[in-house]
């Protein structure tokens, strides 16, 4: 919106105050990150003895290197590196497919209403309140039948299915705010279902696509339950690796490596946030329709 275009956005003291509030919140958000970062560059002894926020006496990047390339996650000591490929192979298609389907669904549900379309949407939404643990076993069985057990396509399928409710929700609610007249005009111009979608709606959907991709990518990338249950030996996503690294039950805990590993595992998501953030552009509907 909105205030960007206004001449009299807050000035002076109000502005300073706003900045202060925003920065204070940023501090709250950053606190755990600082702790993690500091911990990840301290030797283990220092962690055992020192305090949380103290700067490292002996700075070391050993934990990062170890987490990336040599930490053991089971009988395999190759670090997190090898899991990344799997995670990407799973996340990229899952995010693209579920976002695309969600967008089309949202479009069909708002601009081409039919009897029962609201009901369908309601049911879809309610469905996402089943605990994922419940679907674990039956889904395993289904994947077994489909021959997709322990494969990346299987994981993609699962993530797409359980991501649809929300991707649809995002787009539906975004498109609900776009005047129907636009669709009508395009219909008269002779555009069909998909043409209207691609030519008229998609170009103004950037903000919601960003939101949707952020959400889906985060969900898929950070998912552990499905990842561990449905991945095979060679298809494990990075969260499983991270978990194995961190959640050792009776071994020695290397906090610094854990933290480094967690930060490494989160890097792709962070990159997505920063890159996608650019497309948080202003809405474009302004001026298209009067009234």
């Amino acid at each position, binding site marked *: *919106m*909105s*205030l960007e275009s*206004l001449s*009299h*956005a*807050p000035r002076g003291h109000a502005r300073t105050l*706003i900045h202060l509030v925003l920065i204070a*919140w940023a501090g709250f*958000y950053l606190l*755990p990150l600082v702790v*993690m970062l500091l911990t990840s560059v301290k030797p283990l002894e220092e962690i055992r003895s020192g*305090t*949380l926020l103290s700067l490292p006496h002996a700075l070391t990047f050993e934990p990062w290197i170890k987490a990336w390339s040599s930490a053991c996650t089971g009988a395999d000591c190759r670090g997190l590196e090898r899991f990344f490929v799997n995670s990407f192979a799973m996340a990229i298609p899952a995010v693209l497919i579920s976002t695309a*389907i969600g967008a089309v*669904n949202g479009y069909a549900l708002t601009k081409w209403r*039919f009897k029962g*379309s609201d009901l*369908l*949407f*309601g*049911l*879809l*939404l*309610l*469905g996402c309140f089943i*605990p994922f*643990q*419940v*679907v*674990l076993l*039956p889904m395993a069985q289904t994947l077994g039948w489909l021959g997709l057990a322990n494969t990346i396509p299987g994981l993609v399928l699962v993530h797409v299915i359980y991501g649809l409710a*929300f991707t649809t*929700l*995002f787009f*539906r*609610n*975004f498109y*609900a*705010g776009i005047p129907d007249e636009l669709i009508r005009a395009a219909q008269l111009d002779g555009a069909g*279902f*998909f043409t209207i979608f691609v030519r008229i709606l998609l170009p103004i959907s950037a*903000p919601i696509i*960003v*939101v949707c991709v*952020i959400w889906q990518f985060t969900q898929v990338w*950070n998912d552990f339950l499905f990842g561990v249950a449905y991945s095979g030996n060679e298809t494990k996503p990075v*969260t499983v690796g*991270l978990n194995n690294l961190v*959640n050792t039950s009776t071994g020695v805990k290397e906090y610094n490596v854990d*933290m480094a590993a*967690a930060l490494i595992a*989160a890097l792709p998501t962070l990159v997505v*946030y920063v890159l996608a*953030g*650019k497309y*948080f*552009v202003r*809405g474009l509907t*302004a001026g298209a329709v009067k009234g």
Partner: protein
Amino acid sequence: MATAIDAVRASARDTGFRDTLQRWLPKLVLAPTALCALVFIYGYIGWTALLSMTNSKMLPSYTFVGFDQYVRLFENERWLVAAKNLVLFGGLFIGVCLLVGVLLAVLLDQKIRSEGALRAIYLYPMALSFIVTGTAWKWILDPGLGLQKLGQELGWSSFRFDWITDPDRAVYTLVIAAVWQSSGFVMALFLAGLRGVDPSIVKAAQLDGASLPRIYWRIVLPCLRPVVFSAVMILSHIAIKSFDLVMALTGGGPGYSSDLPATFMYAHTFTRGQMGLGSASAMLMLGAVLAIIVPYLYSELRGKR
């Protein structure tokens, strides 16, 4: 001649077909989703409902015991605690996240120069899995290590922040960490919504004499009703599924004072070999959520008309 007529007929049939196709397209497009929902959501819910009536232990079995599992559930102290906690946690979490999300989005919308950086900072917690952040939070909240100690070291000797060790307050620490993780995303949702609002109505409101906060509260936010709806859905989804969070932060403790239905259900279904009971708890959880969500959903979907 015959061929010409045939061609005409064929093309007529063709356009007829295309017409029908166009009319059916919206439904056709939604069909796969509907099918998935039917099988992978409602089918499985049915299956779970079925299991909740059996005495399934470690793996599913089909010896029916009626509503025994539900009876046992209501006699189970821990379940009652978990259920109570969900109400407390869910309510606070959703409320605070919405508030923080809206506030940050609105503030960030004031032509802030460093918007990009701040946005990324607010969002990043989503990127980190609780498997690890749980540890960091645990440290921060630990009275002997984190904030309390820091506060006391800085000279505020009476400073106390030991909720995580207090059975009555541990659940609030869950709220803090959960808000930390999710409010950034809610902010992003609202920001996207704000960017779609027609600036001219904001101008109109300015002339009507509304101050900036009032413009947001009375004019802009009501336009964002669909966004609030999305956010509530997302947040309730996160709330009832908060599993990693509890496991990593409090492990349900002290005692089981910060247990949530999701952890209860998981523990019984998978760890404790009481799949019947676990299924029953899942069904109850679903039922309770639906009791709250359905009316809201109904009013939102109706309201559009």
